[in-house]
């Protein structure tokens, strides 16, 4: 599946794509601010507060965040369905902010399958090509190629309306892939309506397309498992801002913002308000030892300090053991391969993730907090 071979045919197409011969996919978002009000001012509600991002060519990105944080708005700005209130969208250094979606080299897959009900699967896949005046023989070749990749060949002559939800989503995806001028595909929570056992299969297909066709993928989701397994880099969004972009490992081990710590991981990071004095953190009268460098930074930091520690790094010993902090065991949830134990430390609930087989003390216990996994946050931002 070579992209280059199609390029020579593009020259005589009546609706040439915006950039020919150098199909871009480096997407830059420059100082984007967006509000749904027609003439926004300081008092308006802003869906996107300040976005500066770069999505590199051939990368697989996820936009992860809770509902209402602005992910779909951002996706629609990239694809051109929305024009930003302020700021620019650049494809390979070319300003495409004013360019309509059909002139940009992108395809978008929506949350529910969007098909032309009265047409067959073949006609659905051929539709974008026919609109651009591609001759019938080429349309046929291309549609069969895409149908082959997506396992849709058996359905080509069936009416699109009669298919199952996952097949319909494949057709939606196929309509995006069938155009040979597409360099980036944008997904807006596409697996929402798919049965769980088929989600895995579709995820594999999307990954396959990414590897074979070398397209940039941007995948919007509120499901962190989807984001972390699918993407090379994840951008976590919160209330209209991208709080951190990084690999799944970076986001997990080194969150830059308390929201990232809380949102990533199941369950999320534990947070304890604290003050730093000497080489310990004081939490409501209890002392927790810190690494020297972290303690130094903590003493210099200004603002509301919080101590963050992930449940999987904590350990529980019996009450009589040495070391650690005395805690009260509140509740135990058994989830099969692991347990979540809620303990009270100086009046604050802390969750501990224990693998199955490890003993769970009752009533009182000693909580071991390894200093190398402690993270400090001042006013929500990581102290470095």
């Amino acid at each position, binding site marked *: 599946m070579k992209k280059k071979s199609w390029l020579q045919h593009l020259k005589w197409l009546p*609706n040439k794509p915006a950039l020919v011969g150098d199909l871009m996919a480096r997407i830059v978002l420059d100082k984007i601010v967006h509000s749904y009000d027609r003439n926004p001012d300081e008092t308006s509600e802003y869906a996107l507060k300040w976005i500066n991002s770069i999505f590199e060519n051939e990368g697989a990105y996820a936009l992860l965040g809770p509902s209402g944080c602005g992910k779909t708005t951002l996706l*629609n700005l990239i*694809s051109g*369905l929305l024009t930003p209130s302020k700021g620019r969208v650049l494809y390979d250094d070319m300003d495409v902010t004013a360019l*309509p*979606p*059909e002139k940009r080299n*992108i*395809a*978008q897959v*929506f*949350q*529910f399958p*969007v098909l*032309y*009900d*009265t*047409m*067959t699967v073949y006609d659905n896949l051929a*539709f*974008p090509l026919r*609109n*651009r005046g591609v001759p019938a023989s080429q349309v046929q070749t291309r549609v069969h190629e895409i149908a082959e990749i997506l396992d849709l060949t058996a*359905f080509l002559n*069936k*009416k699109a*309306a*009669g*298919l199952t939800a996952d*097949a319909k989503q494949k057709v*939606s995806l196929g*309509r*995006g892939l069938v155009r040979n001028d597409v360099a980036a595909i944008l997904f807006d929570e596409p697996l929402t309506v798919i049965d769980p056992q088929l989600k895995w299969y579709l995820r594999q297909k999307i990954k396959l397309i990414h590897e074979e066709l070398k397209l940039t993928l941007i995948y919007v989701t509120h499901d962190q498992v989807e984001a972390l397994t699918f993407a090379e880099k994840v951008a976590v969004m919160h209330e209209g801002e991208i709080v951190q972009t990084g690999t799944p490992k970076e986001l997990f081990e080194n969150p830059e913002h308390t929201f990232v710590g809380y949102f990533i991981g199941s369950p999320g990071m534990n947070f304890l308000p604290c003050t730093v004095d000497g080489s310990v953190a004081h939490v409501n009268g209890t002392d927790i030892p810190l690494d020297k460098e972290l303690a130094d930074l903590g003493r210099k930091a200004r603002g509301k300090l919080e101590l963050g520690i992930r449940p999987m790094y904590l350990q529980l010993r019996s009450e009589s053991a040495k070391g650690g902090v005395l805690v009260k065991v509140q509740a135990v949830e058994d989830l099969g391969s692991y347990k979540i134990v809620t303990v009270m430390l100086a009046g604050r609930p802390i969750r501990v993730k224990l693998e199955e087989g490890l003993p769970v003390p009752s009533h009182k216990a000693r909580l071991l907090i390894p200093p190398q996994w402690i993270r400090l946050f001042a006013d929500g931002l990581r102290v470095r």
Partner: protein
Amino acid sequence: MLPAFIIVAFSAIIPLMTVVNYSIQDIFGPGQAVYVGTEWFEVMLGNHRLHDALFRQFVFSGLVLLIEIPFGILIALAMPKQGWGVSACLVTLALPLVIPWNVIGTIWIIFTRPDIGLFGVGINSLDLLEVPFDHTAKPIYAWITLLAMEIWHWTPLVVLLAYAGLRAIPEAYYQAAKIDGASSWATFLYIQLPKMRGVLTIAVLLRWMDSFLIYAEPFALTGGGPGNTTTFLSIYLVKLATMQFDLGPAAAFSLIYFVIILLFSFIFYQALLNVGRGEKA
């Protein structure tokens, strides 16, 4: 079950059976009736006047559907999607629907009068016509007035239904069509029209039945004239039943009327719901 059955019995079945009873008898007066079997049905099916009225009725209903449905869809497409304009349009459009039907006939009589009617005076002052315009001067004038009145009266219903259907289409379809590079016509043909299938079925069926049954408006406007050029089926039927007091033939005719409407409603329904649908994959 029983309460529903009793209500349906009183409102539909018993009156219907009365009509069936009349249709198989020759009624000379109260209490004087002779059983004649299917004779009235044969007579009515062979009746010249009935054939003419039936033909006129089909032409009328056909024209009504051909003009009202596309016109209604066009207006619905042109209406605003949000804001105060929506309410303004909906209220203005609904006005013709709430006027009593006899009054509508009267409005159009006055509108087309050659002495005081806006249209009548207007078109006669242009001096283009051989015979000056009056809504019963020539059959063609009567038909034009009748059609104009019917379209003015009922297109708003089609508009309201079509508008509701359009508003129900999720935005994502239009977005996907934009990305696919579809023209406005393609968007209309492949997204809007198929998604309006349900409401359009209702609109077509309602307009078909109402126009085929039409009575008050043409009767008020032309009384069936000039001559019998606008005598539609229902006007002829009423003439038979109440003026000539031929209850037997009228009852037989009513049943035939009922069957024709049912048959065509069924055909329209099946056609509209199944066009473009394929077998399940």
